[in-house]
């Protein structure tokens, strides 16, 4: 079994998702099912294969290092769950 309930709790912590205690067993089983299924990739000979991160063949384009956008503070704050005086309001993070 690749992952244990403790692994799932650790992954959920890394992913910042509060998984309730009664979901851990089911998630462990689901994740193991998927991970076992993807293990068939071990059959493939990948010696010398360059990892492929994108189907784009050309190099990423470059542009002038210049400001092309900005000055839209109010538009950005429109969808904030909480905003005051031009700032996002977030829960206290430093004691």
């Amino acid at each position, binding site marked *: 079994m690749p992952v244990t309930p403790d692994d799932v709790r650790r992954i959920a912590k890394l992913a*910042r998702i509060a998984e309730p205690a009664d979901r851990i067993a089911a998630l462990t089983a689901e994740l193991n099912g998927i991970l076992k299924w993807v293990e068939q990739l071990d059959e493939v000979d990948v010696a010398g294969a360059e990892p*492929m*991160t994108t189907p784009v063949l050309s190099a990423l384009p470059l542009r002038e290092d210049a400001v092309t956008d900005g000055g839209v503070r109010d538009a950005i704050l429109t969808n904030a769950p909480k905003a005051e005086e031009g700032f996002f309001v977030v*829960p206290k993070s430093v004691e």
Partner: protein
Amino acid sequence: MTDFSSLSLHEAVNGLRAKKFSAVELAEATVAAAEAAQGPLNCFTVIDGERALDMARASDARLARGEGGALEGVPVAIKDLFAVKGVETTASSNILKGFKPEYESTVTQNLWDAGAVFFAKTAMDEFAMGSSNETAATGPVVNPWRATGSDAKLTPGGSSGGSAAALAAGISYGATGTDTGGSIRQPAAFAGLVGVKPTYGRCSRWGVVAFASSLDHPGPFGKTVKDAALLTQVMSGHDPKDSTSYQGEVPDFAAAADRPVKGLRIGIPKEYRVDGMLGEIETLWREGAKWLEAQGAEIVDISLPMTKYALPAYYIIAPAEASSNLARYDGLRFGARVEGGDLTETYEKTRAAGFGREVQRRILIGTYVLSAGYYDAYYLKALKVRRRIYEDFTSAFEKVDAILTPATPSAAFEIGSKAKADPIEMYLNDIFTVTANIAGIPAMSVPAGLDKSGLPLGLQVIAPALDEETMFAVAGALERAAGFTARPEKWW
């Protein structure tokens, strides 16, 4: 009076230009049809009659002056993954409930610039993660198609299921979708429509809610190959705001749909003959090859030995990219927030409440395969397998001009029928479509026949990168031979 629901996109464009009806009449009929269908089909997240009429009036004014773009005055439904300025855009997720973007996606802007009329956003699997539209925060979308003699509710497929359902119901004349593993082509096959996933980079991803950036492809649904080709043409084009956007010119795709297929070499990959595939699909596939042969194409048996590894590679790469992309939903700057005692608890509670189960599952898988100690064994390995799949296609396209396969291993299935099953059973829906996302090459599904229950089945055409023209030519030839004109009987 014109039966607006039966018009194709080209018929709507031509009817407007010939002043047979006005854009306002067309918009009014579309909005009324959308409102009437929303209860039974649940295919929309937003219906905006006011904006539709405003845009239609502007189109009528342009048409009266003898002006107007390629889609002037024609309503097009927009998948809820595309940002439309000032209109709620949620990716069918509770975490984006109430989010109204202050910007417009490049693809939708291209549509409006060509004169298309906005009237609705369509429901989808949450964050495009699903193959049945059952993971939408607004509940399952219902396929207008039903099996003969049955009133069981079928899925329109997913993730772009709302777009497919709306278009199949005759409510729109085109629709946008996105395809990360088959999310345009599978719903198109389930709803008797044409669905196009262009080459990666043809359609800008700017303003499209990200799922798996290296696999996400915006594309259209059409009632006909030519409609879908024109929509692809309008939606495509270089966009400096997407660094992966292709810089070359956009060819005349609509014209390509009429090109003869004489002399083209069409590959039939033996690996697409999978266990458990319906006999009717295999028969239809053979028939499709005969149709192309009868029009002068040469049928060539080919092998794509890496095919079976595409789906497992996808279920590492896509969740990995998703876990990174979806990290932005932290409840601080936009979207829903659930307050916790401190910052970390706020993140955790917000994401637990805002994301549905399938999305959480994929984020966890993605987080795991990218985590220290597992990155090489899973993620890096999958990227190397991706290269092998890409090489499969590269060698195949040395021998053939296009590849013909089934679009899906089955017809539309009942809503809820896979709810208790292993998640992998749902993932297998994408077995024929996902390879083209892995390789970034163009692929589309074309309705080709009905199964014994009267449900549509599709064939898939795959072409080399940037050769959508050959793909549309082959699809056009299949469409002409199939003579597929079936539409669902109206019950909604």
